[in-house]
């Protein structure tokens, strides 16, 4: 209890001698503990309780004679106990207000008598007796910082004296007191961590001394417990010393060696909060708003960057290994600090001054096909240390054996650690927090294969936790594990690969693996020949090595550059070979990697040309949903290519895909399956097959109550299917029109693109159009023109075309959309070619209604169309020409087009290689040729020769338009001659 009292208890003055115990939570819990100890002492240890103290404990009491009952002689205000020592002196004496007590039995009695004043009594007693043990057992047992030789002294006494019995009791008492001491210290440590919940970050724990201090021993004698650097958002970083005397600012302790850095540079504050209140106005302001203050709640306002590391001064020969660790760990800390800097700079009210961003620009040079796992998730520290589970202490002990044991002890400790539930976060974080990760990673650098295996078996499990992953990467674990991949030991290889697979779940880790040559080595692991026949033990291990290699590549393949690296390392043929494996647990990572990499064209080609489609299709028929999902997903990505779509059909992969639609509960699988069906439907041969398998009927059923990722694909597939007239009817008959129209109100842009396309395709059927019209679908489509996404705008405009074509009274309907015509004309200002083409197509439809044509003319459609004529894009040219042809039908638009310079560019369209451009252009020219000036322009631009050629076309519309135009030009020429020559 001596150490606890001097070290943990908070005294008003730091000096020894008399002082007051402050009223703080730490002290209160200390007092309560001591009180409990004293209260139960005489019943638990009756023999020890009777031991007479060397000197009585004396203090000023609030007890009075009336408080004492039997067993005491009361004379006036004075009281004497009936219990006496061998010489007849009473064990307790009260002469108010002073009391003196000679044994624990009397102490126990006092606290029992004192009832509600007992805490006060204990406090008074301790305040008056700063070192009670010295009084109880003699001055040689006084608590001296940094040494404890009390037991040795007792041994000396045993040698000297012959009062064996008494000494034995003394020994017991000493042991009891020491137990109390330990208990008090550990409890007060918990208290301290309660008010500084972020106090023990993992790194400093490496040097946590058994007494709980995190300071070098020569500072512990000054009562210093730990050092913190706190960066408030409104002031300079605060370098803080937490000591038994309180908390104060120091001279900035960064590393050992600077002695005066430890000096106090501020007043001493009773606790961290008080200090922060006085140093950071922002903190003070916010903390005052908190009622029932909890530090946790202010965690948002400040971050403890880290508790400083310390290196013990004393050197011994075991140090070299530890130094290597501390170097690594300083590196990691630097990184930590950078990270913390960033998190701080993002706080309100602080100027961002992140030095060079997070780890430089390289971080962002890499794209990933998958959304990053948890890249920017803030470090989550153990929130509250109040109830450290028992596992924590057990694991701490095991880590101690790992550090200080030879191979045998290390292996035992590693095996024992594996008996903890390593899937549980408590255990995972406990290993990290007691410095276990550093040791485990260090072990990987040794020559001891067993230690490496044991360490990897643990790392493999705990690296499922994202915080642990980060810590492993920070400690340089990936580099070591990549090296292990070269080991001849197969167990080591597969364990390292499997752990890499777990760690490489975030971008930085994946980059580290690549930069240290990990991809090449992992690809090499794939090089085993799986034999479907019975395997020997060794072959089985080879397969396991390959499987774990594939797992690691799967994780790594989420970064684009790694996909490239896998390909360059020759991974594709090896993956293709493993794809023939009969084992699902091998196939899952292999197909997983392939489908991940299929985002790259090179892989899509390889999957097609190396015959992998056949294997993918084969595995669609297996009964493992995960594998089926990856296969479907690979097909989804690859079927953008026509040849691949054909292969899927030829390998009879379409039917299994349709069958998989029945697994509607597994949404990931459903998304992959519907995606594959969608992309395969781009080929009409496949659509015919799907028709046979009644795929559309099922797909329509999936239009409601599905996640968006499924809906996008389902609607995409329906949109492709609806290109066939029979399927449009099928969709209607299955009740698909209404849910499709309903989806037009959504917000997911990919979904909107597909829905508009599907609705547009359906609208080409009159019966469908009636339903769409009734559901006000055209208005919904029209309002999507306002969507900011050009893809949605274009797709909506395309869909509007068949609607106007097929709707009853479409002119009237279009006019009823307030501002609708102006909206669509204004889209001609878009810079997106697809939007322009689709809007021109829609304008061509709109302009069929004379009244609407007048309106759009008023909105300036003519100069806007004319402005677009210089385009070289054939799709736009075609629809632009259509629109111009239609718009010529109103007022003086023909003349205006000519004046706006639209004619000459249109003549050039006739030289386009796209024949569909010719037809529309000829029609536009025919309309324009009704104005003489346009005829002149056309003639000057050599239109006649071009049109003459087209008059011989098999396309009758083109023929007629070309001929009409030539006729108009000819007629003008004749009239001209007539005028000139009479």
């Amino acid at each position, binding site marked *: 209890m001596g150490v606890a009292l001097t070290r943990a208890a908070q005294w008003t003055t730091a000096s020894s001698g008399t002082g007051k115990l402050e009223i703080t939570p730490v002290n209160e819990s200390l007092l309560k503990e001591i009180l409990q100890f004293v209260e139960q002492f005489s019943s638990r240890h009756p023999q020890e309780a009777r031991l007479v103290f060397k000197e009585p404990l004396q203090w000023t009491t609030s007890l009075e004679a009336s408080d004492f009952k039997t067993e005491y002689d009361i004379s006036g205000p004075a009281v004497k106990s009936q219990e006496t020592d061998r010489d007849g002196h009473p064990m307790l004496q009260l002469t108010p207000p002073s009391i003196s007590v000679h044994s624990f039995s009397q102490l126990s009695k006092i606290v029992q008598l004192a009832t509600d004043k007992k805490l006060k009594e204990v406090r008074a007693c301790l305040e008056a007796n700063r070192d009670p043990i010295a009084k109880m057992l003699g001055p040689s047992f006084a608590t001296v910082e940094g040494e404890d030789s009390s037991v040795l002294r007792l041994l000396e006494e045993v040698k000297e004296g012959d009062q064996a019995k008494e000494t034995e009791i003394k020994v017991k008492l000493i042991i009891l007191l020491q137990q109390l001491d330990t208990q008090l210290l550990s409890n007060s440590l918990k208290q301290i961590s309660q008010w500084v919940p972020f106090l023990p970050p993992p790194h400093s724990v490496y040097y946590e001394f058994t007494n709980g201090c995190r300071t070098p021993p020569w500072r512990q004698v000054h009562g210093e417990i730990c050092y913190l650097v706190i960066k408030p958002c409104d002031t300079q970083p605060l370098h803080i010393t937490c000591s038994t005397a309180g908390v104060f600012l120091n001279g900035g302790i960064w590393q050992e060696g600077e002695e005066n850095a430890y000096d106090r540079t501020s007043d001493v504050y009773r606790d961290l909060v008080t200090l922060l209140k006085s140093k950071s106005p922002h903190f003070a302001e916010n903390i005052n708003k908190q009622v029932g203050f909890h530090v946790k709640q202010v965690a948002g306002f400040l971050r403890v960057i880290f508790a400083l590391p310390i290196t013990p001064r004393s050197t011994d020969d075991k140090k070299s290994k530890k130094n290597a660790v501390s170097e690594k760990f300083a590196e990691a800390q630097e990184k930590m600090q950078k990270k913390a800097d960033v998190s701080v700079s993002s706080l309100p009210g602080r100027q961002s001054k992140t030095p060079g961003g997070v780890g430089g620009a390289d971080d962002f040079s890499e794209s990933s096909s998958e959304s990053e796992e948890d890249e920017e998730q803030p470090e989550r520290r153990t929130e509250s240390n109040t109830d450290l589970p028992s596992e924590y202490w057990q694991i701490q002990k095991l880590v101690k054996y790992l550090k*200080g044991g*030879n191979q045998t002890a290390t292996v035992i400790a590693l095996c024992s650690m594996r008996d903890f539930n390593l899937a549980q976060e408590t255990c995972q974080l406990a290993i990290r927090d007691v410095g276990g990760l550093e040791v485990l990673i260090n072990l990987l650098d040794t020559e001891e*294969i067993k230690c490496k295996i044991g360490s990897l078996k643990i790392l493999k499990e705990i690296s499922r936790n994202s915080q642990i992953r980060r810590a492993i990467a920070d400690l340089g674990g990936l580099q070591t594990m990549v090296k292990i991949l070269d080991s001849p030991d197969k167990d080591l290889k597969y364990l390292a690969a499997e752990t890499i697979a777990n760690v490489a779940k975030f971008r930085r880790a994946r980059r580290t693996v690549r930069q240290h040559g990990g991809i090449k080595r992992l690809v090499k692991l794939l090089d085993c020949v799986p034999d479907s026949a019975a395997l020997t033990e060794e072959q089985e291990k080879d397969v396991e090595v390959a499987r774990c290699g594939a797992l690691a590549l799967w994780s790594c393949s989420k970064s684009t550059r790694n996909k490239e690296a896998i390909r360059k390392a020759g991974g594709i043929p090896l993956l293709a070979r493993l794809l023939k494996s009969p084992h699902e647990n091998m196939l899952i990572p292999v197909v997983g990697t392939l489908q991940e990499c299929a985002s790259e064209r090179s892989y899509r080609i390889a999957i097609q040309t190396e015959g992998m489609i056949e294997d993918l299709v084969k595995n669609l028929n297996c009964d493992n949903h995960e594998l089926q999902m990856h296969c479907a997903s690979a097909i989804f990505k690859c079927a953008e290519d026509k040849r691949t779509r054909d292969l899927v059909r030829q390998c009879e992969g379409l039917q299994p895909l349709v069958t998989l639609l029945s697994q509607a509960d597994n949404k990931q699988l459903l998304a992959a399956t519907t995606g594959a069906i969608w992309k395969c439907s781009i080929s009409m041969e496949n659509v015919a097959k799907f028709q046979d398998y009644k795929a559309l009927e099922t797909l329509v059923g999936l239009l409601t109550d599905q996640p968006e990722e499924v809906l996008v694909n389902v609607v995409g597939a329906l949109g492709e299917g609806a290109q066939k007239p029979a399927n449009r009817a099928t969709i209607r008959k299955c009740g698909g029109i209404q849910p499709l129209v309903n989806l037009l109100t959504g917000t997911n842009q990919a979904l909107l693109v597909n829905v508009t396309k599907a609705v547009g395709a359906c609208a080409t059927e009159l019966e469908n159009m009636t339903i769409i019209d009734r559901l006000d679908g055209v208005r919904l489509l029209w309002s999507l023109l306002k969507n900011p996404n050009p893809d949605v705008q274009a797709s909506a405009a395309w869909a509007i075309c068949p609607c106007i074509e097929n709707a009853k009274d479409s002119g009237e309907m279009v006019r009823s959309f307030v501002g609708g015509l102006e909206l669509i004309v204004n889209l001609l200002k878009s810079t997106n070619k697809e939007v322009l083409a689709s809007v021109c197509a829609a304008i061509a439809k709109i302009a069929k209604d004379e009244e609407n044509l007048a309106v759009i003319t008023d909105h300036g459609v003519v100069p806007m169309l004319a402005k677009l004529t210089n385009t070289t894009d054939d799709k736009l040219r075609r629809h632009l020409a259509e629109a111009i042809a239609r718009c010529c039908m109103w007022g003086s638009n023909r003349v205006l087009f000519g004046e706006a310079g639209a004619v000459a560019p249109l003549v050039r369209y006739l030289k386009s290689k796209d024949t569909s451009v010719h037809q529309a252009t000829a029609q536009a020219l025919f309309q324009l040729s009704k104005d003489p000036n346009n005829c002149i322009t056309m003639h000057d631009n050599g239109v006649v020769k071009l049109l003459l050629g087209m008059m011989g076309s098999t396309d009758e519309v083109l023929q007629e338009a070309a001929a009409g135009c030539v006729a108009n030009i000819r007629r003008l020429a004749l009239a001209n001659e007539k005028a000139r020559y009479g």
Partner: protein
Amino acid sequence: MAEMSAMNRKLIQNLAETLSKQVKHFNKTEAECLIRLFNGLLGDQSDRRVGNGLDRGKFRNILHNTFGMTDDMIMDRVFRAFDKDNDSYVSVKEWIEGLSIFLRGTLDEKIKYCFDVYDLNGDGYISREEMFHMLKNSLIRQPTEEDPDEGIKDLVEITLKKMDHDHDSRLSYADFEKAVRDENLLLEAFGTCLPDAKNMESVLSFCP
């Protein structure tokens, strides 16, 4: 002289023939090579007359130099395990038999062998005391600790908790076997008594 060595060679070949049939894992050529290695280690003729094999000291040297073992007590126990007839010499047959476990042993054979090594008094159990004895040098002692043996005692308890399946505070062969099967790393739980891969290679490299 040439006759002598020719005769010698014949003898060795015959012996190898016989032993390779008696001992698992080695063919005749390998057995022959290991016999030669044995003879080489035995030294000159005069010594050979003294006993009929490698004595404790010589054998321990081999364990130390060739197989990288360091723990005296364990090396003694390995000697006892090799010396099946308990005559304080490892005969050529015992040598080949021992090496067959060392170099080619199956897991079963190794479990049996390690258990024999660790069962110091040969009573069929590895007791708490035996464990303590074998582990006592496995931790770096902290002079600050009250009881420097506390760590070792704790290690013994951890091991018992892990391996003593029938909870009788000692490891029977069945306990040991089950624990090692569950976790192969525990095969040499109480000290290195088998060569590692590197040392094995160096021995096998003697053979052509």
